């Protein structure tokens, strides 16, 4: 707990205001359900077919590359904090790491993973 306790209190307060607004809405709102109101909005047209439409594989590719970069950033976090003690050694290490990663990045770019047409 310790330092996390005030954060939890704050998050709970935010949650509470959300919930209380929902409850207030439940009590105060008008309720006149109608068949036309209860269909998904598609600019006035009747919705047809499945809504879980196929989407571009690009989104998966972006997620994959994101994973690689995110893990890399996770490695850099502790390095940035102790950089003063590591000095030149740490710099050379991270240089090698970043150059390797950059090679992978350029490869992904040349293969067209970052091309959105």
């Amino acid at each position: 707990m310790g330092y996390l306790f005030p954060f939890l209190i704050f998050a709970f307060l935010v949650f509470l205001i959300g919930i209380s607004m929902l409850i207030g809405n439940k009590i105060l709102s008008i309720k006149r359900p109608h068949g036309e109101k209860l269909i998904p909005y598609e600019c006035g047209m009747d919705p047809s077919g499945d809504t879980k439409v196929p989407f571009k594989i690009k989104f998966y590719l972006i997620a994959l590359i994101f994973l690689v970069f995110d893990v890399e950033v996770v490695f850099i976090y502790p390095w940035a904090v102790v950089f003063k003690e590591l000095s030149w050694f740490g710099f050379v290490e991270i240089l090698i790491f970043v150059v390797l990663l950059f090679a992978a990045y350029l490869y992904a770019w040349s293969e067209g993973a970052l091309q959105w047409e």
Partner: protein
Amino acid sequence: MDFNSLYIILSALVLFLLAMFHVAYLTYAERKIIARMQQRLGPNRVGPRGILQPIADVLKLIQKEDIIHPGVDKPVFVMAPLISLVCAASGLAFIPLWENFVLSNLNVGLLFILALSSLSAYGVILSGWASNSRYSFLGALRASAQVISYEIAMSLSLLSVVLMAGSFNLQDIVKAQLSTPYKVYLIPQIVAFFVFMVSALAETNRVPFDLPEAETELVAGYFTEYSGIRFALFYLAEYFGMIVMSALAVTCFLGGYAGPFEIPGIPFFWFLIKIYAFLFFYIWVRATLPRYRYDQLMGLGWKVLIPLSLLNLLVTAFIKLLI
């Protein structure tokens, strides 16, 4: 209940009320400023100069009918706006508002804020998925791809600040800034600041990167199916997000609560002034710029901002070794 936890609860309440007040009047300020920039009057009916408009808005939205169409995945649909709101707002707990007032003085505060901002992608994608509507689904896909792309650039740009300060604690970052000759990291880290500001606009889905809710093509993006107060929760989350991002920018690049001279009586004075400047910038950008195209948006994130911030990180490390 001992005295200490009572104090913590009270200060959490103070921070929360302060934040709610600012969110409410940020919506008013946005409408008013944009109206002035477009030579309109803006809200001016409710109270003098429309000053009570946010309260009227809340009362109106609370009375609206809550439409949940039968196709939705109801538990997820109900949860999604709450997830969005909590993740967007609770980052404020780590921001040092003043030398003696930081609600949660965590050692990894900055890391925690970044984690919360990634979690808010869940609110987006769950709402889009649960809505069972095409516009919502497409909006959610776009939003999540955009948020995760810009997150890398944002964390890399904040890492160069961490590198200079040597700590993730936001209070320590402010103190480290005050011991440098310029008193702010804005000058040595101008590249990181630029990357951070662009990605902060994209993270909060604001113009010119408001592709997920591009109303001309996707109606309202991932919250198309939300009505009444549930829509208001997403709205709140967006404005809380803006405030957290501005507060983060102030803390990491502009010297936080410190000012050129002390103002007696108002301890948060400089912090608030700096935050208002950033919020004005957000609104100004919205009134000025047209929307980006999606491929340009992803291209900017992946091909410009990420290499730039990575390079900036290495250069910062190199310069730090030389001096």
